[in-house]
């Protein structure tokens, strides 16, 4: 974790200690392009960077696991360690033990730019908020409601009507009224691209050298990697019309992180063998890899999934469908489970659906013990199916290795007379509706017992319920067809508290023209036709209007329709909040579209429970199917006499048919605006935006500021010599805290503390903190001058609310004053007060300057320091142990500042955040916090523990170890015992949000059950068992979450792994250009942010920059030099990046230091530093 400062000194530990010291710098010469050249030099700072200090304390320690080890409190913030001497780094080269120089000509002849590595521009459309509720109204129109929004938005692709939708975070599956399955993949700035590859094989013969003629026993001349499959380049086809080629085929020059420099050829003695980069005397065969990318193009549109039906047989269209399972496998597998039920009651599973392959490959039939009518698949391993007979089927044995599960078991309905009609499952909950529309909650459901224990009846009469993310629940009212949200669902109270009606209005209510056709087809779907065969009717607009005209004008409007939905029963039966809010809207609706009223009230049988309702008499549906479309169609055509008079309400009450919350993340701290009808705001104001809000620039505010200044001038300017009426006195705040005492044995001792604030002669405030303690019955005290405090940091652990005070002296001693308060509130009060006093005595207030230096600690706390003007001038260097660090609210893993006030951060959960210009938040409230620009921020990280086992001849691997062994449940080092039950979240701020699960993504790989094997503890582990392996371990992970506040806004929806902003001085006259910002997504895509400026620090959109492999680290230097490190450890330089060509043109592969895999790179004005996986620091020589 190094970051090079602008003048070429690596002046910042990245995520750990203090940050990018890019303040001001002597000798910056803008405009001169930097060139990278020559080779890498190991920097002889330390052979291995220590776990704390410069090599960010965030991800050091345990090299075997690569896991974060949180260093000890006492030394986790050491500003002193991170600065390197700021004179020329070349001095270090002389002492460098591992000098490594290579001379390369520039541009590197070795690596001509690969053709495909050119920039590909995605359209900068506004991306959909990544958390939306999907729903289908009674007419088959699909709507989405954002968690940040207050309007239902019509799905962008509204050509089709749907009867079912099932959503995940990035996509939505649906069954349209033509009975075909469609998938809607939300647009994103990052394309879905997949690599196709083919190998060209050649054999040497004495006549022509290497040539295409192979021996008869050899592989195909064009083959796959194994050589067994023939694979000619022109034979590789796109899998479906929804894909397109990104470019033509080209040769892959990268061989294991190094450029081959020989046209991509790799050599071997014979097929199959180990290939090497260099040709040897005995190299008889050679091969090279051709690659080509294809890209999924059908985004923000419904893409048809080819029908499973054999044309020769009778069609068996799908009747229900459910998407889930995304929590079973993490990235990179990222599988989705798509399950469907056909009209004949069969259950189908869609193979190979994942984010990179959104369509999946084929349908496979699953055996079921009965006829299924409906299916629900949870985010994790729950899968429930309702059967024709009213029981539920529960799938057992679903896991990572077997997403289809292994067996079924049957759950009986709550009451025998009313069978189950509908189920919906979440991670640990099952909700069901029986045929009498009662809502039921299944108690005791979890992964180990997917069947649960018993039913509990809930309040409400519902048509359907749907469980979404975080086990939140939505339902559609049985009689009013309104959408309800279950309020109060938390991890501890999964059944929630009450149903609350969602009254968000539709943004597109006035577009009637499109709805006439939808009405007809929706009518078909409710009527007979859909039940019989799969024959679909897709009437055109003309059909609709013709039919409407024919039947319409004299169709009577049933009088009771007005009263129908207002049946008092629904408001009483479905709990508080229902009915009342929608009353006035209902009136309008029932006049405008009168038919659904009586239909709903009198004959529930015709509602879209086609399959279930088959048992009921069929007289009513046919009547309704006839009556329903015309009248409604008429009103939209404006022919209905009553409808003409009535204003067509913009907020008429929607009638819903289906809802899916699988892509809708509602959390405890979410503030939803769904429950009130808001007026006067346009839909575009739905999401928080960072551009300065009108309120802050409003004339009235400016005038108040200005008048106050004038008033002070008028009333005070000439009278400063007057005596103050109130003399400033010393103010003392006292309290009781605990103190981690300075002497051994270290322990918490009770102390009295007093903060004395006084005003100095110059009017400045200063404060002293006294700590009174008793030792050997003798009263003593120590004191801290707050103007000497360099850092005040909360130190949160499992049990104590404590904080530490550092002074330069204390930093040198590595022993801060460590105090603990009894309650969180108490600690926050003290922290806020002490922080305010420190800032006041240093006269630091308001928002940090653009040049401020930002840093994060290994716990994720964020600090800012104001640089002195001469920070990087070597004559008057402020010793960094004297820099004052002030805390900002929020929680980040990485922070990156630009020098022009643009600051970005990345959370532990990879969420990207942009600084809003506020200050405070977190534990700083009141005066220590700005009024505006403070928002809720959350972060999620994993806690890891290890299960260790030893092999013995009797029982095989067991949890019985040798007496000398580590704990059988331990941390990564094995030194601490960590059991599943006994392990707590890292501090009181964090709460568990998941259960323990096996982590399969550990370095070294695992077997199917997650085990890693080794000959003994501690050793290097591998993912397969050999004869010599006597021990094994596996890693368990559990997610925990923290919610805080800070001056940060999320940059949705793409999550990031790394980010870099061009270092610029604030006075640099570049106002015409946006600020260059590059990032690597957590999946490894390289991205360039467009439109970033001081006024719009979040920028507008991402530009995807194509790469041949995932990247991990990126850095942009002051002269637009972009360097990056790929996941295989190779370094790349991006050519021709400039303000006018923000994404550059191509990648140049720069060879890494020999036998080292780089993992991070940082670029300054002209210097380039890199860090390899073993913690060595490298300096690139010859960059000018």
């Amino acid at each position, binding site marked *: 974790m190094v970051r090079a400062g602008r003048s070429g000194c690596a002046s910042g530990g990245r995520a750990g200690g203090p940050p990018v010291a890019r303040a001001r710098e002597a000798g910056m010469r803008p405009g001169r392009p930097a060139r990278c050249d020559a080779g890498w030099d190991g920097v002889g700072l330390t052979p291995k960077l220590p776990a704390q200090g410069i090599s960010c304390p965030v991800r050091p320690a345990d090299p075997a696991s690569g896991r974060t080890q949180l260093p000890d409190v006492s030394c986790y913030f050491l500003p002193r360690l991170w600065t390197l001497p700021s004179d020329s780094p070349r001095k270090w080269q002389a002492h460098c033990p591992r000098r490594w120089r290579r001379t390369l000509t520039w541009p590197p002849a070795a690596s001509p730019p690969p053709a495909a590595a050119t920039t590909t521009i995605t359209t900068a459309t506004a991306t959909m908020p990544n958390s939306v509720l999907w729903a289908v109204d009674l007419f088959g129109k699909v709507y989405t409601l954002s968690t940040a929004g207050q309007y239902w938005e019509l799905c962008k692709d509204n050509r089709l009507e749907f009867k079912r939708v099932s959503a995940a975070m990035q996509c939505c599956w649906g069954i349209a009224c033509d009975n075909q399955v469609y998938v809607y993949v939300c647009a994103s700035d990052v394309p879905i691209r997949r690599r196709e590859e083919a190998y060209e094989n050649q054999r040497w013969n004495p006549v022509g050298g290497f040539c295409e003629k192979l021996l008869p026993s050899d592989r195909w001349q064009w083959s796959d990697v194994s050589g067994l499959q023939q694979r000619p380049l022109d034979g590789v086809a796109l899998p479906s019309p929804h894909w397109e080629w990104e470019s033509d085929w080209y040769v892959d020059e990268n061989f294991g992180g190094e450029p081959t420099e020989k046209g991509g050829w790799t050599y071997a003695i014979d097929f199959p063998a180990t290939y090497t980069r260099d040709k040897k005397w005995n190299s008889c065969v050679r091969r090279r890899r051709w690659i080509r990318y294809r890209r999924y193009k059908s985004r923000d549109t419904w893409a048809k999934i080819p029908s499973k039906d054999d044309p020769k047989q009778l069609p068996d269209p799908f009747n229900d469908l459910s998407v889930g399972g995304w929590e079973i496998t993490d990235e990179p597998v990222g599988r989705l489970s798509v399950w469907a039920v056909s009209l004949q009651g069969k259950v189908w599973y869609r193979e190979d659906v994942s984010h990179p392959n959104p369509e999946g490959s084929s349908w496979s039939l699953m055996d079921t013990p009965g006829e299924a009518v409906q299916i629900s698949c949870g985010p994790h391993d729950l899968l429930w199916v309702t059967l024709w007979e009213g029981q539920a089927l529960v799938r057992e044995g679903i896991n990572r290795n077997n997403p289809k599960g292994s067996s079924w078991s049957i759950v009986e309905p709550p009451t025998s007379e009313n069978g189950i009609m509908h189920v919906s499952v979440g991670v640990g909950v099952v909700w069901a509706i029986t045929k009498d529309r009662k809502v039921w909650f299944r108690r005791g459901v979890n992964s180990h017992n997917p069947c649960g224990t018993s039913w509990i009846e809930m309040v409400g009469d519902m048509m359907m319920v749907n469980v979404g993310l975080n086990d939140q629940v939505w339902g559609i009212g049985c009689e009013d067809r309104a959408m309800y949200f279950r309020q109060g669902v938390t991890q501890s109270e999964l059944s929630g508290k009450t149903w609350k009606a969602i009254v968000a209005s539709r943004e597109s209510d006035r577009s009637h023209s499109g709805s006439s056709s939808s009405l007809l087809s929706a009518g078909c779907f409710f009527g007979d036709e859909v039940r019989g065969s799969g024959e679909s009717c897709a009437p055109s607009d003309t059909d609709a209007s013709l039919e409407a005209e024919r039947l319409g004008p004299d169709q009577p409007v049933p009088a009771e329709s007005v009263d129908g939905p207002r049946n008092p029963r629904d408001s009483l039966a479905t709990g508080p909040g229902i009915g009342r809010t929608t009353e006035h809207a209902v009136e309008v609706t029932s006049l405008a579209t009168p038919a659904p009223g009586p239909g709903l009230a009198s004959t529930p049988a015709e509602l879209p429970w086609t399959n279930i309702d088959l048992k009921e008499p069929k007289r009513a549906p046919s009547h309704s199917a006839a009556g329903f479309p015309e009248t409604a169609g008429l009103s939209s055509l404006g022919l209905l006499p009553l409808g003409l008079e009535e204003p067509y309400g913009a907020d008429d009450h929607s009638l819903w048919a289906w809802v899916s919350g699988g892509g809708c993340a509602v959390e405890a701290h979410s*503030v939803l605006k769904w429950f009130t009808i*808001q*007026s*006067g705001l346009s839909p575009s104001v739905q999401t928080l935006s960072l551009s*300065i809000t009108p309120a*802050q620039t*409003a*004339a*009235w*505010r400016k*005038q*108040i*500021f200005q*008048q*106050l*200044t*004038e*008033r*002070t001038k*008028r*009333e*005070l300017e*000439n*009278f400063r010599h*007057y*005596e*103050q*009426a*109130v003399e*400033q*006195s010393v*103010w003392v705040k006292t309290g009781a805290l605990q103190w981690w005492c300075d002497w051994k044995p270290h322990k918490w001792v009770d102390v009295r503390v007093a903060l004395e*604030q006084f005003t100095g002669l110059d009017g400045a405030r200063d404060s002293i903190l006294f700590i009174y303690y008793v030792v050997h019955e003798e009263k003593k005290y120590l004191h801290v001058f707050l103007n000497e405090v360099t850092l005040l940091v909360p130190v949160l652990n499992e049990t104590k609310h404590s904080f530490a005070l550092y002074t330069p002296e204390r930093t040198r001693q590595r022993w801060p004053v460590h105090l603990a308060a009894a309650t969180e509130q108490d600690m926050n*009060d003290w922290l*806020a*007060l002490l922080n*305010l006093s420190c800032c006041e005595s240093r006269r630091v207030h*308001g*928002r940090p300057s653009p040049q401020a230096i930002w840093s994060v600690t290994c716990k994720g706390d964020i600090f800012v320091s104001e640089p002195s003007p001469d920070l990087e001038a070597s004559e008057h260097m402020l010793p960094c142990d004297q820099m004052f660090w002030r805390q900002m609210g929020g929680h980040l893993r990485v922070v990156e500042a630009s020098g022009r006030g643009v600051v970005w951060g990345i959370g532990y959960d990879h969420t990207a955040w942009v600084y809003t*210009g506020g200050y405070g938040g977190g534990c700083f*409230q*009141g*005066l220590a916090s*700005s*009024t*505006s620009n403070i928002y809720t921020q959350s972060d999620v990280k994993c806690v890891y523990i290890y299960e260790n086992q030893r092999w013995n001849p009797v029982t095989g691997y067991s949890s019985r170890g040798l007496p000398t062994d580590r704990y059988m449940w331990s941390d990564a080092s094995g030194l601490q015992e960590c059991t599943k039950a006994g392990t707590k979240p890292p501090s009181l701020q964090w709460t568990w949000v998941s259960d323990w699960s096996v982590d399969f993504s550990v370095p070294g790989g695992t077997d199917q059950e997650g085990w890693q094997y080794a000959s003994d503890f501690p050793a290097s582990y591998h993912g397969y068992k050999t004869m010599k392996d006597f021990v094994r371990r596996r890693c368990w992970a559990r997610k925990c979450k923290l919610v805080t506040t800070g001056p940060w806004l999320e940059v949705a929806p793409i999550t990031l792994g790394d980010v870099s902003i061009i270092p610029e001085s604030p006075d640099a006259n570049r106002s015409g250009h946006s600020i260059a910002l590059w990032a690597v997504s957590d999946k490894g895509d390289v991205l360039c942010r467009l439109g970033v400026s001081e006024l719009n620090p979040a920028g507008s959109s991402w530009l995807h920059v194509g790469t041949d492999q995932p990247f991990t680290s990126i850095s942009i230097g002051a002269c637009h030099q972009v360097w990056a490190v790929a996941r295989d450890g190779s370094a790349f330089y991006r050519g021709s990046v400039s303000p006018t060509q923000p994404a550059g043109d191509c990648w140049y592969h720069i060879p890494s230091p020999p036998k080292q895999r780089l993992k991070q790179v940082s670029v300054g004005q002209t210097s380039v530093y890199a860090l390899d996986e073993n913690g060595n620091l490298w300096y690139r020589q010859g960059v000018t």
Partner: protein
Amino acid sequence: MTDDKDVLRDVWFGRIPTCFTLYQDEITEREAEPYYLLLPRVSYLTLVTDKVKKHFQKVMRQEDISEIWFEYEGTPLKWHYPIGLLFDLLASSSALPWNITVHFKSFPEKDLLHCPSKDAIEAHFMSCVKEADALKHKSQVINEMQKKDHKQLWMGLQNDRFDQFWAINRKLMEYPAEENGFRYIPFRIYQTTTERPFIQKLFRPVAADGQLHTLGDLLKEVCPSAIAPEDGEKKNQVMIHGIEPMLETPLQWLSEHLSYPDNFLHISIIPQPTD
């Protein structure tokens, strides 16, 4: 950009340069020099005039000293009004310093309350704070506070300690996230032209349609005479803390930022100076 927090500071540290002169009819042993002082706008006269009292008592005979009271151009100054309000209401158009006459005799019983000690001021101040919180939060916030928090509010005001005061007062300025403001805005509107001491009514910060009420909305509702008709000439100044906020200013914001320490918005309506 200036942050709203700076407004609080500016309001708190508002000072009025004042010249105290002893009333000519008071009997003194030697000539009483005028006394010059910077008075905090947010405080109370009797709370910050110990020095004045001491200064003039030195020149007076012991037996002539009774309760001190102040007068400006013939109007006795009510100590239970904040100083800034008194100045805005009575003297904002006059030249600085503000000339206040000090009396020790003939206490105007019908105009002024007695102020026997600082406890009286504290009692008055705390009752205002409580009344304001009753309007804002149905007294929930103030009742949840401890006695020492109440004390800290008062001590903060008495000792002119901004931090100390606001460490507690910020809690009184909070409101539930799901609401858009307080229940009612605690305000008092003062006019020199009427007999009535002030206007105080229930007024919500947010209109039924969700729009924020502005200062103009408030005046239109409770004191329509204060605002000029659309086409007419501006006859009055609407003044808080010596400034004239625009009528478009949201009332909730004003209440959070321009309230006096007693948590009331004290609004002065004064005739537009004719110069």
